[in-house]
């Protein structure tokens, strides 16, 4: 059974150390993929025939936008398991993910505006894609606010979890907004089934950047998850031993 395999990770101490083992690997992979991908994308990928070099913001904008939605989905799944199975750790991971997702949503909005000004002729327009992505940012901010609004962490987790789950409705709206309605924002270039609408020598650096950003996000989540677990279990003996050991290590 899957439960038998997953059960040890319901223990905060085991999860804390597991995330600690994952962290250096994700950091290294993120560093390798991002440095290769960014150099390739910004210096060696060919310029677009119409947009010239301006299109290179694509390599930051699209991964950020995709991850802003991906992180939200992860956060909502964590919120669901915390509401239904009352896993305290799921709560901690949802709280760890929210600020990271909000940051990536913000990056997607800002890079999009920076591209929109020279290409479209405007920083912002209230079309369906831009508006729904802005709502995603507000949902993240709401979740973060609720996580911090209550002294009692499990009550806060419950309130934030409900908001996170309700907000899931926004994800398909963002994804399909460009197909359902007339929007100024173009349709999907990558991420649709079949061939991406860009040539291979532009697509490969994107893929490398995207993988790099994914590892970077995983590393950030591990980092924040560990500190969430520590603050939530600060009275537990294992945390005290851990802290005492660390202090001994640094005290000369």
């Amino acid at each position, binding site marked *: 059974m899957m439960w038998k395999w997953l059960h040890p990770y319901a223990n905060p101490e085991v999860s804390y150390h597991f995330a600690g083992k994952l962290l250096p690997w994700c950091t290294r992979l993120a560093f390798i993929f991002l440095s290769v991908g960014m150099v390739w994308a910004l210096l060696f990928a060919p310029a677009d025939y119409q947009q010239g070099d301006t299109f290179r913001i694509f390599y930051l904008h699209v991964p950020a936008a995709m991850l802003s939605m991906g992180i939200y989905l992860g956060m909502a799944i964590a919120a*669901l398991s915390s509401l239904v199975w009352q896993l305290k750790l799921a709560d901690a991971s949802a709280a760890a993910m929210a600020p990271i997702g909000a940051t990536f949503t913000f990056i997607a909005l800002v890079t999009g505006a920076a591209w929109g000004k020279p*290409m*479209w002729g405007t920083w912002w327009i209230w079309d369906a894609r831009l508006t729904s992505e802005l709502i995603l940012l507000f949902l993240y901010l709401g979740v973060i606010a609720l996580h911090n609004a209550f002294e009692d962490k499990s009550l806060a987790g419950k309130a934030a979890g409900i908001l996170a789950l309700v907000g899931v409705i926004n994800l398909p709206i963002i994804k399909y907004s460009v197909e359902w*309605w007339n929007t100024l924002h173009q349709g999907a270039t990558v991420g649709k089934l079949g061939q991406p609408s*860009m040539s291979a020598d532009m697509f490969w650096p994107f893929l490398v950047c995207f993988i790099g950003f994914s590892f970077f996000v995983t590393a950030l989540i591990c980092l924040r998850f560990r500190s969430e677990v520590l603050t939530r279990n600060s009275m537990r003996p294992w945390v005290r031993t851990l802290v005492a050991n660390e202090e001994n290590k640094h005290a000369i």
Partner: protein
Amino acid sequence: MNPRRKKRLTIVSTIIIGLGVVAGLVLYALSQNIDLFYKPSEIYHGKEGTGLKAIDGQRLRIGGLVVPGSVHRDSESLKVSFKLADMTMPIAFSESDPTVTVSYDGILPDLFREGQGIVANGILVNGNTIEASEVLAKHDENYMPKELADDLGEQHVKPSYSQAQLDSKT
């Protein structure tokens, strides 16, 4: 699964599905208003679905493809007029397409080309002319290097302005 968890799962999924249905219905009801722009054919026949027509003097956005050969630019000022046809994939134009004329006095965005998608914001006059106060370029989802575009015969000349034209605006 124990009964308490089952109950919680039912409650949570009922709420989510219920809200999903509500959101779906609201968006469906609002679908005409969420559309950013009218298509040229919708100026003549009204919005798809509701048949709602724009009236003279109404402020609206129009989106379509710039008909090749229809762009007339004043040599002394920034005044420009062009025809728009419905966006179709793949891009194709025929004589019988309903077109709307857009007139504009200002600098066109970099991506403005004949055969390119644009969105203009302006006032409808005489049933089929838009006096635009803003012209935005709509980029498509295709990205390709210059060499490949040359092979495909895609044109990519930016609009350029003389000093006299730029001075006329100020």
